[in-house]
């Protein structure tokens, strides 16, 4: 991101009440719309705006081998496989190229922090609305201050 966004993130993270407000707002928005699991390192723009962390195995790089023929989950037979949904929506939105991105392991220190602020601070992959896959330099992984 930019120097300006890094300043916003730094400012927010210096003010605990403001930061909690941002997390609350983000949660309300993302939980309602995307079923956000609060991993703090959002990859929605790579996964056709379906949250892959809803998968019981939290697969970030594609489906496990257990997707049922009707596209349902092996663990919860009455739920759709998240990756089946991602694939379907990626086709619909023309974002299949984005599915080829390799996602590095989850940084567990970022769980329950604000993905927006992490993005502004340059800790995680930026939101990428384009349909092509671009090589992005791996972000630095220093977590926000602990409280």
């Amino acid at each position, binding site marked *: 991101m930019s120097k300006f966004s890094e300043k916003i993130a730094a400012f927010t993270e210096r003010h605990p009440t403001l930061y909690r407000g941002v997390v609350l707002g983000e949660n309300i928005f993302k939980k309602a719309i995307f079923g956000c699991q609060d991993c703090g390192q959002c990859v929605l723009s790579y996964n056709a705006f379906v949250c892959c962390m809803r998968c019981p195995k939290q697969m970030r*790089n594609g489906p496990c081998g257990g997707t049922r023929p009707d596209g349902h989950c092996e663990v919860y037979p009455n739920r759709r496989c998240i990756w089946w949904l991602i694939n379907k929506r990626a086709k619909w939105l023309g974002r299949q190229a984005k*599915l080829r991105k390799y996602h590095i392991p989850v940084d567990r220190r970022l769980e329950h922090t604000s993905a927006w602020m992490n993005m502004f601070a340059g800790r995680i992959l930026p939101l990428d609305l384009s349909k092509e896959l671009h090589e992005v330099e791996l972000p630095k992984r220093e977590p926000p201050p602990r409280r």
Partner: protein
Amino acid sequence: MDMVSGSRLERLLRQGEFVVCGEMSPPQGADKASILKKCDYFRGYVDAVNLTDNQTAIVRMSSVMSSVFVIEGGCEPVMQMTCRDRNRLAQQSDLLGAYAAGVRNVLCLTGDYQSFGNHADAKGVFDLDSVQLIRTVADMNAGKFMSGDEIKPPPAFFIGGAANPFAEPLDLRIIRLAKKIACGAHFIQTQPVFDWPRFEKWMSLVRDEGLDQQVFILVGVMPVRSVKALTYMRDEVPGMSIADEYIKRMESAKDPKEEGVAICVETMKRLRETPGVKGIHIMPVMWESITPRLVEEAGLLPRPQPIAIEEPAEPEPAEPAAPPS
């Protein structure tokens, strides 16, 4: 590609041989003797044996220790490692230990979900997924822990991944396979084939992307003993596809065991003729004793010997740890 681990499996594959892998379930008890006994079914009949890591989430002896016992029994192990039971620290430390004990092949899996096993109340770890685990092992081969710290001396594993040609959605299966290869997988083992149209569709997509040129694909086969086993797989094992033709054949057979063997041998022969397939992975679930017969009837005996290569120079012994000051 250059030789990575120098394991028997790797050398045979790079020599262009059609390889055969077996699979052994470690015992549900503190029983080393049964592993050594099962080695008799594999020694000389297959090139390497997979050791499952608590498959279907049922507790068994650890795949690391079983692999070590299999070496003692005169076979080459392919150690399976799942992400269900260990976090990234435990995985890396187990890999170091396994390599030091002589394990050279590792198969990286995500692992069956814990609710399918006998400890359904357990916490699943899933710290990494299988693609990330493959990258981790590749990085360890290159001398780096996940943290970026240096490994002295580093291991040199022949890295495997799994692929399921039969589960939906097909196009994502190919993307995922390509990711595993890009992350450093050297060989791929698949689920057993009981649905040829689907398998050939998958295989042609793999060939179209040129993936069979970048990785050794070993395709799974499974001998079944009864029609019940097939219908169970069809109905209860997610991600499996069984053609009705096989169920009919098993139902009408006088001796289902013989028919199961016949189907398996047929599949093996047909796979040998399939372009892009570099070997077979026999998964005789709890029926290891049938392996020699399958390999013999499929005309895959005697197993080839790897051409001797120059032994890589012994890594320098690690420096003793500095005493705490």
